[in-house]
């Protein structure tokens, strides 16, 4: 089992290279990573055409570029955050598009650690689980999947300590300290583990600085060059959306928030839960408490005939409460989709079919992106909405942005995070959003 040649976390490449050439390879990698969010399929087609051996040299050059970038990231925390996130996205895409089952197994072992990965048969025999009925059922389901054509899928066992998200959400089958499941269900955890390994690698690379003067100089030059780079600089801070002023761009809001904000615009009144839902959301996409106080004062009909000071004294309490400035002083987050489904407002669940049809056909999103979705697709979404609202939301995302997210949309901020990447709103504080990329037909 060997790692695929595009995989960057493997034995250091041959460093017998001219410094200037090496720097060019690093800049080439930056360009690749930058282009990825706007058009991933094209980037993969252009940069990673096949996995033939003849391309080994090209891939080695990619790894060399990535290697130098890691050295640069070791000197600048903000650059490190950008690099980890971007490499994580590239890894996810390549893993999905360019990896054979054997290579996937090798990646699992490299990313989670050799001691934390076991093959299904190995687990069954070493843990004396040959009579386990649930395990047998899992295996039968896997075989049935193979017969249906899921030939690239396989069962694998990961130690529970490596996949805390899956333990928290009780995903997979936990037995004797190992989570047994099919490869597909580990993908989210695999990406996180890859990013963690990359971070460890960057920290380890710090030791290589100060050894060769010419490398140090190249690293310093690149660091200065990249620190001036608008896209990277603006995404330096973290992957948190807070503080990024995304609230000025409703064209990247998820449908639930679009619906609620439109309702507020037209009726000037919202139910308590909708107010909370929108309030939490606006806070997390960068609206300050003062801006939000202003927002509600201007939008809501309840505030007619009262002064701003009076508003601050009465309704202001609720808004400051959202920010953890009053009452229990808790810093609230936006509820996830499953919570929204039961306690807040999700158009896919709470609108009647006719209203949902109308809303999905035309709203701020469709107008802002000049998208016309075929009535048949909308009909299908309406039909499926009550059964699986998150899938419908994900499909709707793909119709709006012409891009299918790797994973289901399960949180309003996930929609914002992906859509902002696609249309290129990184430094929204001083930059207008780019035109969305023209993509494949719907």
């Amino acid at each position, binding site marked *: 089992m060997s790692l695929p040649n595009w995989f960057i976390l493997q034995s250091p490449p041959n460093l017998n290279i001219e410094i200037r050439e090496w720097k060019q390879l690093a800049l080439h990698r930056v360009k690749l990573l930058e282009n990825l969010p706007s058009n991933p399929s094209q980037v993969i087609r252009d940069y990673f055409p096949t996995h033939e051996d003849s391309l080994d040299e090209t891939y080695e050059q990619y790894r060399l570029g990535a290697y130098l970038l890691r050295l640069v990231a070791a000197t600048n925390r903000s650059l490190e955050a950008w690099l980890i996130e971007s490499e994580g996205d590239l890894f996810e895409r390549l893993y999905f598009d360019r990896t054979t089952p054997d290579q996937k197994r090798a990646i699992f072992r490299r990313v989670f650690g050799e001691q934390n990965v076991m093959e299904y048969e190995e687990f069954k025999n070493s843990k004396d689980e040959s009579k386990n009925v*649930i395990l047998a059922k899992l295996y039968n389901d896997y075989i049935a999947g193979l017969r249906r054509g899921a030939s690239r899928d396989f069962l694998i066992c990961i130690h*529970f*300590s490596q996949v805390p*998200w899956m*333990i*928290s959400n009780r995903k997979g089958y*936990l*037995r*004797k*300290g190992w989570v047994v499941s099919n490869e597909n269900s580990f993908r989210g955890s695999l990406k996180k583990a890859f990013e963690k390994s990359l971070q460890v690698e960057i920290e380890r690379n710090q030791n290589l600085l100060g050894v060769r003067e010419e490398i140090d100089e190249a690293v310093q030059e690149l660091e200065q060059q990249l620190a001036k780079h608008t896209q990277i600089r603006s995404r330096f801070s973290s992957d948190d959306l807070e503080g990024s002023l995304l609230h000025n761009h409703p064209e990247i809001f998820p449908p639930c928030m679009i619906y609620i904000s439109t309702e507020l615009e037209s009726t000037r009144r919202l139910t308590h839960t909708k107010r909370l839902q929108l309030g939490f959301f606006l806070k997390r996409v960068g609206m300050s408490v003062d801006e939000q106080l202003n927002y509600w004062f201007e939008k809501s009909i309840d505030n007619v005939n009262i002064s701003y000071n009076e508003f601050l004294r009465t309704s202001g309490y609720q808004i400051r409460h959202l920010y953890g400035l009053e009452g229990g002083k808790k810093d609230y987050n936006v509820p996830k989709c499953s919570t929204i489904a039961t306690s807040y407002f999700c158009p896919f669940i709470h609108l009647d079919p006719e209203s949902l049809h109308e809303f999905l056909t035309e709203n701020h999103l469709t107008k802002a992106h000049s998208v016309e979705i075929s009535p048949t697709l909308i009909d299908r979404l309406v039909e499926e909405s009550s059964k699986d609202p998150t899938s419908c939301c994900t499909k709707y995302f793909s119709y709006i942005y012409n891009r299918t997210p790797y994973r289901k949309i399960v949180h309003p901020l996930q929609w914002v995070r992906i859509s902002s990447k696609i249309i290129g709103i990184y430094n929204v504080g001083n930059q207008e959003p780019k035109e969305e990329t023209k993509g494949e037909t719907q």
Partner: protein
Amino acid sequence: MSHNSKEIAIRDYYATSFDIKGLERVIDFKTFRSREFGFASLDNKFFRNISFENPSALNDFLVDRTPLHAYVGAVYDNPPTRQSPIHTLGWLGHELVFDIDLNEYDVVRNYICTCQGADQLCNRCWQLITLAINIIDETLRLDFGMEDIVWIFSGRRGVHGWVTDSSGFNLTQEQRMSIIDYLTVIHGEEETARVENRKSLPEDFRKRVEYNVFRAFLTDIKRKDLLNVGLTPSRASNIISLIKRQEGKIDEPVFREFNINLARTNKYDEILRRWVPRIDHKVTIDTRRLLRLPLSIHGKTGRIARILSTQEILNFNPEKEPSIYRNIVE
């Protein structure tokens, strides 16, 4: 009770009955030097960031200073001292610990027995603790593959479960939190806490929880309790007579009969809410927390935080535990 008489009783215990070697069942002596300890003095002043060269130095300290409470914490890369407190040191590990305390059950205890207030407890409400131990212990062993689990009486109203496996020692807060999430069946502490959807629980785990909860619920059950959970009079009588026929034994047929009948009522969540484990999450997640030193004295009750064997757990009665203060005559 005067400080002086307490001091004599505590010194007497640590000098004559306390066996420091027994501690090795819970904490690894190889890392003893860099482990944090904390103490509350007789006048209730609290000290932490203390370490000892070896176990006998700790023993001497306990005899000499007679602390009201003794606590043990995590292992660091250097011995914690006042000059180098724990926040300046690198954290190396802490055993995975679960704290189950009757305080957490105060909102639901009134459905189970008539005890009131913090100082009252009885065999029936202690059943809640036994039930929690059964579910957590079995889940840690079967689902998480942990083998060395020691249950220790806290000295007052609860127990501490120490997982002494090396695999538990290095777990991060996130990993500990995930174990708590897995074990959590109810969300919230209040009486109306939300019960996890039945379908979202793994099959093995759900059956384990149901079996233990229903068995505890049906033990010494009265007909009116069954009527209260929505069973019809005839079904309630059937179950009561079935239990009587089996001389009070709650086995698979009784469990199945009850489960089928319960499915017809909407009281499933209600029963679970009253009986399922309520773990103090903070204790498990906080990797720098100080916990009562096993085998030490609970200063308030005078009872010893002793290690419980599997057999003892089933029949344990905290009220019958001797107190070192029992012979003190003022």
